[in-house]
Structure formats: C-alpha cells, structure tokens
C-alpha cells in the first residue's frame, strides 16, 4: 500500500469521476428509480446507457480509464434475470478476466466494479455509488491523461522541440473536436 493523502494542495478540488455502463432494463431503470425516489447520492458518476451488459466491450472500460475516469462501474441485471437471457453472464466472464488484466496493469481493484442491480433496487444504485466514490476518494486520482503528459515529458529532452505526435497529443486529438 502506497497511498498518498489525496485532496491536499492543488488536488483539493479533485473529486473522483466514475463512468458507469448500465444496462437499459435493470440498472439504468434502477438509477431512474433512485431519481424518482429523490435519493441523494454522490454525483460523481456519469452513466452510459447500453441495452445489455453483454454489449459492454472491455475496450469501453479501458477507454474510460484512458480518458480520465478514476473508476468504471458496470451495472446489469441479476443472474437469471437478463432481459436478453444471458448477456449478463458474458459480462460477468469478461469482468473476471478484465479484472485480472487490470491487476496486472497495476490498476487498483476498487477502480473497476460490476454490480447486479435490478430495476427495483434504486437504493442499491445509491449505496454502490456512494461506496465506490468513497473508495476512490481514498485512492486518489488515476489521471491517465495527466500521467500520459508526464510520461511524454521525456520526449522533449535533449533540447529538442516538444513533439506534436506524442501520446498526450494523440489523446488530446481525440477530443479536439470538443
């Protein structure tokens, strides 16, 4: 464990950002229910709706981390409850293998989570997100865009001009149309 105290100095305003991929039928509906029920929970999550947790390509998870997510949450229907019969089992298997890959990549396990949340479990949306945000707050930023910029600093040494084709530039290019 090598955890620095986050939220100090310039990081004071930092709040973790979670990208959540929720299936349309269960977890997205549950998040709507949490809304209709006016539950209050940590606002740090940004939800991407897909029809089924089986649609969640591991590339989406990695891409979210790459673009600055501090955590990624997958939400699907409980086993046996998938609107499409078995998409959630595929999601579960991908999750387990991706978890191992992320561990090998040095990503703390709290940053990637899968939860089965049925349409009626608005309270679970709240508790899962609150808990995950607290864990990420503790863990501090992953900040891959920042790290990439740091890594690329070495490309500018030896008096050379800074590159325009570095990793950070490439990452920036993808959002340059913003």
């Amino acid at each position, binding site marked *: *464990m*090598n*955890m*620095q105290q*986050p939220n100090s100095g310039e990081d004071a305003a930092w709040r973790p950002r979670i990208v959540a991929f929720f299936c349309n039928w269960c977890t997205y509906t549950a998040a709507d229910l949490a809304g209709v029920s006016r539950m209050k929970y940590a606002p740090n999550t940004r939800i991407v709706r897909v029809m089924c947790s*089986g649609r969640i*390509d*591991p*590339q989406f*998870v*990695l*891409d979210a*981390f*790459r673009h600055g997510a501090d955590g990624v949450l997958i939400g699907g229907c409980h*086993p046996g409850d998938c609107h499409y019969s078995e998409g959630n*089992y*595929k999601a*579960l*298997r*991908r999750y*387990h*293998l*991706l978890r*191992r*890959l992320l*561990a*090998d*990549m*040095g*990503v*703390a*396990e709290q940053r990637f989570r899968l939860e089965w949340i049925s349409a009626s479990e608005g309270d679970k949306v709240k508790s899962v997100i609150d808990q995950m945000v607290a864990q990420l707050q503790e*863990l*501090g*930023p*992953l900040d*891959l865009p920042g*790290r*990439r910029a*740091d*890594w690329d600093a*070495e*490309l500018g*040494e*030896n008096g*050379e001009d800074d*590159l325009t*084709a*570095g*990793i950070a530039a*490439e990452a920036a290019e993808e959002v340059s149309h913003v």
Partner: protein
Amino acid sequence: MSEKPKIGMYWCASCGGCEESVVDLAEGILDVVAAVDIVFWPVAMDFKRADIEAMPDGSIAATFINGAVRTSEQLEMVRLLRQKSAAVIAYGSCAQMGGIPGLANQKDREDILRYVYEESPTVENAAQIRPQRTHGVNGATATLPSFHGNVRTLDQVIPVEYYLPGCPPTPRLLAAAVQALLEGALPAAGSVLAPDTALCEECPRRDSKPEELHIDQFHRPHAVHIDAERCLLAQGVVCMGPATRGGCEAVCVQGNMPCTGCFGPTSRVKDQGAKMLSSLAANSAGEEDAAITGVLESIPDPLGTLYRYGLPASMLHRSLSDTNRSKEQST
C-alpha cells in the same frame, strides 16, 4: 543524382529479426536493390549520421523503421529520418505496436535497471555500479543515450505513413509493399499494408472450429498435445487469430502453434487485447463466479497473452503501478 527512389532502413528497440526478414526476399532482393537506391542501412552498410543530415528534407522516398522507441538516440534518429523522408513505414510489430520489447512497459525504468545491473542472478555488481549518461575518459566526455521510462510505438513519437505488420513481416507482404511503393500505388496514409480481415479467414483450420465453444480449460501450447488439424481454440489453446489481422498465411498455425497476435488488430479495433479478452471470455464456460474464475485462471498470464506485441499500443499503454506517480496499490 540517381533517378531511382531512395530507401532507408533503420532499427530501434528490436531483435534484428526484421532486418533479417529483408534477406528472406531471397533472390527477389536483387530486383529490389536494382530498383532502388539504399541510402541508409546501418546493419548492412556503412553510412554516417552526417550523411543523412546533409540530405535535403523529404529526399528519401521511404524509410523502413523497425523496433520500438526506448532511448533518446532512437528518438533522435527517427526524428531525423522523419524529416528526411517523404514516407515512413513502421516495419514489424515493434515499430507498429511496441512488440516484445513493449512488454517492458509492465515495469518501471528503475525496476529494469536495478534488475539488469544488480539483481539478475548472473550479475555480480557489489558496488552497484550503473551506466552513467556522461563519463570523462582521457579528458574527453563519452555520452550514452538516455533510457526512457516508456517503450513507445513509432507513431507515438513521429507521424507514420504506413505499417508493415509482423514479427517479422513476411517476404510476400514486404515485396508487395515495395512493389506498391515503386509503382506509386500505396493506399491512403495511415494504412496497414495487410488485409483488414482477421486471420481466421485464411486459416486452414477454420472449418474445424465449432459454432458452439464453451472452453472449460485453457492449455498452454507446450503443455498439451495439439491436434494438427483442429482449430486451436477448440482445443483450449489461446489462439489470437480471431483478433489478429491476416496476411501472414497462418504460418504459426501451419507450424502447429497458435497465433500470438503479431499482426495486430484490424483497423476497426482500438485495443487488440481487450477485444480478444471479450471474445475469449464470452466463449468460455461457467456461470457462477467460482466456475468462471476457475476456467479463466487456466490462462496464466492474461497480459502477456493478450498484449504480447501490443502493450505500448494498448489503451492503457503501460502498467500504472509506477512508483513515481503511484497512488495505486501494488497488486
């Protein structure tokens, strides 16, 4: 001035196999040599850096660069060659995706240096001496290039026009690329000069792959007798073919070994390892957590399996447990 197009060849962090692959052209190499003017090829001919510096910008028609970029010297050279070349071709898996040297992105620079100079079982270095960037010898100063924190693909440091994939690229693909270059028939910049369809299309074992596949145990190729006729995935051997660009004519499979992914993903895929992971997981067995992890644990090294050639080109690029910025737990 010769009217023949000028060609350069250079290597960075690589094993040398790409250089040898040129020789695999066999007698075809004579046609190539006759058709072009090789202006730079350190492994085979004596050229000086100054010769290149003296050339006008863009005067080399194409430079084939193999190897990943790890040192300041490599960086300088590829930048110089970029400036002097009309087109740069990333030659081979290392230049394209980082290759085997890219697996070093699992470790920090410090970890690597410490291991190599201090901890490796064959090293005796009680004084813990490490190479220095500069050193005075007889009143002169000797300089070593710096060792970067990251292994990078070629296109992460300079713009690249074309990619010739493979570890190493096959003679047929190289010949086709040279042919296209000479005829001015190269495709749009940014293209990989290989088919954009996965390997299975040209795999002699495709017909033996079942439509239903619930892999309940993965095997490493050395640990199992591999049936030379059947699809390797159907035998529980991880074959990267479905997630890997074709064009190699399935040479590994024809040698009864699985594809390990050296041609990289199709153009539609951003992360080869993630895509293969997705497909492997979806096609393996188990519905309960314990059963699933039991099956998947028979893949001993997911990272090394899924990103054997592509860690620096992957979405995460490298291990994030680097201590210089780490707030991560070591796992």
